[in-house]
C-alpha cells in the first residue's frame, strides 16, 4: 500500500555502480569527474584482508594511484584527517577512493573538506550546511553489506584533544559514486555477514515503520527486505555465492537510501546506547533488538509491520496468514532468522544481549548495566521518530526481555492500558 505523508523530502544523489566487476568501472567514473590521480583511504583490517590489492588490480594501469593511506583508526579522528589531507596535497592527488566502512568514509569526507576548501581548519566547516560547493570527487567502496554509509550526507570526526565529536552535514558530502562489488564482501566471516545483513534489514524495517516514512523510502525498504530475505541464508550456507553477496550489498545500499530519507527509531536508539555503554557491535545490537522494537510499537504501527510480511515471506505466506496475525508473523520470522543465523554461525550470532561477549570472552552486557544503557538511550536522538514514546520503565522492560531473549509481554508496556 502507498503511504503518502502530508509533506516529504527524498534525495539520494549518489551514483551507484554495482556488479561482479564493479571495481573495473572506477577508471570510467574517475574520467567522468575529470580525475586521474586518486588517493586510496582505508584501514589496516581492509588492507590486511587483501582488498586493496583487489581494488588496485581492478584499476590496472588506467589510473595512477596517488597513494594508499591505510591507517584510519576505528573512530575517525582529526589527526587521521589532517595526515591524509597532507599526503593528498603532497602527492598532487585529485580524488579520493574510500575503501571500508563508516569510519574510513567519514575520514575521507573530512580530508576532502580540507583539500577542497584548501583549509587547515576543519572545525570551521562543522555543522549543518556549512559547505557551499562541490568537493573533490569521492568514490566509496563498502567492504561490508550493512551500514549504508555510502549513501549518507553526514560525517563525524572525533577531535581527541578536545574530547569532541564534530558532525558535518551537507549534500556536498555525499560520495560521487558508490561501487558495490561482490569481491569486497566475498571473504567476510559468517558472523559479520549475519550481523551486517541484520543491520541493513533493521534500516529497512525501521525506515518503513517509523514516522518519517515516505513512498520512495518505502520502495527502497521493501526492495532491500526482499533481497535480504531471498539471499541471506543462501550466502550463509555458501559464503562464496557471488550473486548472493552482490544482492546483499545492493540491499544494504537500498536500506541506506531508505533510512537516510526516513530515519530510524527505537531499535537504533537502544542499539546506539548498548554499543556506547558495552561496546557491542552495532549489527549485533540491531539483530537482537529489531523484534523488540516491532513488538513494542505494534499498537501504533502494526498495520505497517503486517505489510512487510508480503516482502519478507512472499505472497503465499501473506495470503495464508490472517490479517490480524501478520505483524506478529513478521516478528516471529525475524526471530527465526536470528535463530538460524545463531545455528549456522555455531553460536557466534547472538540472539539476545546475554549471549554477547567481548574479545576476552567476558559477557559484554552484564545485567547490572542495563540501567546505564537505558539512561544513555534517553539522550539519543534516534528516538525522536519512533512511533511510541518510552519512559524509564519501558526502556528497562525492553532491555530486560532483550537480555534474556524472551518476547515482550505487551500488557507490561507502561501505561499501555491507560493509553489504549
Amino acid at each position, binding site marked *: 500500500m502507498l503511504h*503518502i505523508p502530508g509533506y516529504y523530502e527524498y534525495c539520494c544523489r549518489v*551514483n*551507484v*555502480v554495482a556488479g*561482479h566487476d564493479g571495481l573495473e568501472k572506477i577508471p570510467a567514473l574517475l574520467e567522468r569527474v575529470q580525475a586521474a590521480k586518486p588517493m586510496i583511504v582505508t584501514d589496516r583490517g581492509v588492507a590486511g584482508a587483501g582488498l586493496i590489492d583487489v581494488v588496485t588490480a581492478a584499476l590496472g594501469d588506467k589510473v595512477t594511484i596517488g597513494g594508499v593511506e591505510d591507517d584510519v583508526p576505528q573512530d575517525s579522528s582529526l589527526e587521521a584527517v589532517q595526515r591524509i589531507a597532507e599526503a593528498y596535497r603532497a602527492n598532487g592527488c585529485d580524488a579520493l577512493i574510500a575503501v571500508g566502512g563508516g569510519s574510513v568514509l567519514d575520514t575521507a569526507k573530512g580530508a576532502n573538506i580540507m583539500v577542497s576548501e584548501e583549509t587547515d581548519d576543519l572545525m570551521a566547516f562543522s555543522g549543518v550546511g556549512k559547505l557551499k560547493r562541490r568537493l573533490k570527487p569521492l568514490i566509496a567502496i563498502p567492504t561490508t553489506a550493512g551500514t549504508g554509509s555510502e549513501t549518507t550526507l553526514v560525517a563525524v570526526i572525533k577531535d581527541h584533544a578536545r574530547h569532541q565529536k564534530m558532525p558535518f552535514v551537507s549534500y556536498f558530502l555525499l560520495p560521487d559514486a558508490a561501487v558495490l562489488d561482490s569481491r569486497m564482501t566475498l571473504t567476510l566471516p559468517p558472523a559479520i555477514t549475519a550481523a551486517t545483513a541484520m543491520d541493513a534489514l533493521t534500516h529497512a524495517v525501521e525506515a518503513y515503520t517509523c514516522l518519517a516514512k515516505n513512498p520512495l523510502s518505502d*520502495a527502497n525498504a521493501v526492495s532491500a527486505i526482499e533481497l535480504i530475505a531471498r539471499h541471506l541464508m543462501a550466502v550463509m550456507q555458501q559464503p562464496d555465492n557471488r550473486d548472493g553477496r552482490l544482492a546483499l550489498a545492493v540491499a544494504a545500499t*537500498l536500506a541506506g*537510501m531508505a533510512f537516510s530519507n526516513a530515519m530510524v527509531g527505537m531499535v537504533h536508539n537502544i542499539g546506539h546506547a548498548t554499543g556506547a555503554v558495552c561496546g557491542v557491535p552495532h549489527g549485533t545490537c540491531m539483530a537482537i533488538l529489531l523484534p523488540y522494537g516491532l513488538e513494542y510499537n505494534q499498537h501504533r504501527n502494526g498495520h505497517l509491520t503486517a505489510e512487510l510480511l508480503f516482502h519478507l515471506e512472499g505472497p503465499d505466506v501473506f495470503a495464508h496468514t490472517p490479517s490480524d496475525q501478520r505483524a506478529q508473523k513478521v516478528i516471529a520470522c525475524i526471530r527465526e532468522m536470528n535463530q538460524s543465523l545463531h545455528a549456522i554461525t555455531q553460536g557466534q550470532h547472538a540472539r539476545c544481549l546475554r549471549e554477547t561477549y567481548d574479545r576476552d570472552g567476558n559477557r559484554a552486557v552484564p545485567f547490572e548495566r542495563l540501567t546505564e544503557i537505558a539512561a544513555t538511550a534517553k539522550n539519543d536522538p534516534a528516538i525522536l521518530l519512533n512511533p511510541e514514546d518510552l519512559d524509564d520503565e519501558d526502556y528497562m522492560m525492553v532491555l530486560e526481555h532483550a537480555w534474556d531473549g524472551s518476547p515482550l509481554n505487551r500488557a507490561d508496556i507502561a501505561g499501555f492500558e491507560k493509553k489504549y
Partner: protein
Amino acid sequence: MPLPTCFEFECPVKTHCGDRALENIAFEMRAMNAVKPLIIGDEPAAQEKRLVPVLNAFKNAEMTLGVVEAIPVEDPASVAAQLAAIYRDKDCDAIVAVGQGPFIDMAKWLNLMVSTGEENPDAFIEGKGIPRSLRPLAVIPSATADGLELSGYVRLQGKTLRSVNLMPPLLFLDPRSVGQPGDVALAETGLTALTLALEAMFTADANPMDVVYARTAAKLAAMGLNGLAGDSEIGGPLSLTVAHAAALAGCTLGAGPQPLAFKLGWAVAETGKISAAQAMGVMLSYVLEHRLAANEMPADMLLELLDSAGRYARTPEGQRGAAGLQLLRDLLNRLFETTDGKIRRTLSDSGLSLQDVTEATEGISAQGKGNASGGQETIITCAWEGRPIR
C-alpha cells in the same frame, strides 16, 4: 525479479512533495550556493497564477529575484537566448522553472547555455560533454505533464540532448503549484506516468534502484487514474498525486532510452487524431503483454502495483499475470466511460485506420531497454482492435 549482475543507477533529483513544499525552495537554493535565481513561468502558469505561491515563498529569503512570466514555447531556442541574456545581465546564479513539457525542455537548455557558455545545441549532439556541475535548476511542474520534465532529456527544435547531468537537481510538488486541470488532461498525465513506470519495471534488466522510482510512480499513477475512474477510495488531492507520478516517472526514465509504448505513442500522435498520452495508454497493455511473453517475464507484479498486495496474494499464482493485464485494460475502459469517450480504449476509437497507425509508427525501432524485438505489427494491430494478443 532477478538482480542484474551489473548495473548503474543515478538520480540527482531531490524531491520535495506535499503541503508547503515551496517554502523550502529558498533554503535549497542557498544550500546550493545560489542567491539570485531567475524565476521563469510558462503561459499556463501565468494564467493560473501558479507563480504567486512561488514568489511568496521567497518573501523572507533576502534574495534578489529575476522574474519572467507567461513565456511562450513556440520558438524555444530564441526564447532561451533572450532569457540567457537576462540571466547574465542580472547576474543570476540559478533558475526556477514553473511549467510543463516543452517549457521545461527550454529551461534545461537555458541552464546548459548559461552554465557552459555554449549556445549551439549541435555542439553537444556532436559530442561535447555536458558537465556535471550545471547551475542549480529547480523545476515546479504542473499536473499537465508530458513525463519528461524530470528526465535527462532536452528536446529542442527536433533535436534531442540527453544526459543524467540534465536532470534537474530540485523538484517541488506543492498542491498550490500543480494546478487543477480537467479530468482528460489529468488522465493523460497519469497514463504517461504509468507507461514510463511500468515499462521501466517490466524489463529484463530492471535494476532494483530504478524499480524504486518506477514502482512508486506506477502506484501513484494507478491511484490517480483509479480516482479519476471513480474509485471512491482515492486519497489526497488528485492533481498532486498525478503530478507526483509524472515527476517520478521522469526520474525513472533518467537519460535512458525511451521505452517502446512511449515512442509509439508520440509517433501515433503525429497523425493529429489522438494525443501521445492516450496513444501510449492504449498501447501499454499490448506492449507489456508482448514483452512479458517474449522475455518470459512474469506479469504477476502488475496486480500488486495496480491493486494491492492482498489482491495479488488472493489470486492463484497462475492467474496473476492475466489478471494484472486485464486490470490495466479495465482501467482504460472505465476512463473511457467516465470521460464520455474522450479517453480512448483502442486506437480505432480515435478514428485512425490501421494503415494510418502502421504508417505513423513505421520508423519506430523496437530497440531499447527491455523492448522485445519484433512483434510491433502484432502490438499495433491488437491495440487498434482492442483485442488481447493471446
